[in-house]
């Protein structure tokens, strides 16, 4: 589901998936529709919290890619599940 984008089997899973997609990939747009869909399903506080988590991982992704952090050996198995080999990343 992380790779495919299929909604996770979690409360408000579809709305969380839509918010993450909109906020991450449309870097110059207000994700209004996705925000209000999540508010309608999970409430304002949960939606605000979700925006914060998504925003934080915009930071952490750029940070770790930018400093050239290696993929930890314990994550190599997870990488295989996601369909890539860390030693084949162009770094």
């Amino acid at each position, binding site marked *: 589901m992380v790779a495919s984008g299929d909604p996770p089997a979690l*409360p408000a899973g579809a709305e*969380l998936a839509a918010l993450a997609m909109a906020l991450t*990939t449309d870097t110059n747009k207000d994700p209004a529709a996705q925000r209000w869909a999540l508010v309608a399903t999970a409430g304002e506080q949960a939606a605000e919290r979700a925006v914060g*988590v998504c925003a934080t*991982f915009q930071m952490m992704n750029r940070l770790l890619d930018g400093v050239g952090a290696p993929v930890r050996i314990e994550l190599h198995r997870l990488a295989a599940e996601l369909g890539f080999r860390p030693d084949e990343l162009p770094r």
Partner: protein
Amino acid sequence: MLSDAKLAPSPDRLAAVRAAWANLTAAGPTLTSAERIGVINAARAAWAGEVQPDAGLGPLGEAAHWLAIDAGGLTAQVVDDLEARGLDRWRYLEVVGVVARTSNVDFYARGLGASLPAVPEPDGAPPSRAIHADAGITDGWVPATGPLMAPFSLDALPSEGDALRSIHEPMYMPMRAMGDSAYGDELSRAQIEYLAARSSYLNECFY
């Protein structure tokens, strides 16, 4: 700041954003306020759709541009090239931190339906020159105080490391809760980690 948000920020996250913005737009350990604001503007231009960096900022602007929109495409060779053209590893590390933290502030504001924080006039203070005396290249491209671990990856510039954690904790979760799989607040731990994993996958970040 965030006063026009369609969805109200929590008090702790609003405070974190205010503190981050004051820090980001002031002089840092190796960059002036004007340089940091130039980095912020370059990142924002990239997010707004500029496909190439503004040549006026030189390698500083190039680094900011690519960190903003294609951090996963950076390679050791690119960082070597930036260094050869005048952006040393300490300044590059600070650019990484400024772009990264700006993304947290700006994407949070955008997600709430708020205007992006306004960029102030640069102040005239010089860089602090506060760097960690024992830092060196470890397992990445930048000076570090040990193996590169997410919340500590800016610690070669101690004030930048502190600033990172000051926004990371209220936006993600307290450091003391990281190992607690039962942690929950407005969202469950499973919901939080799904958002983290999905955002990272979409950014093609595998670390």
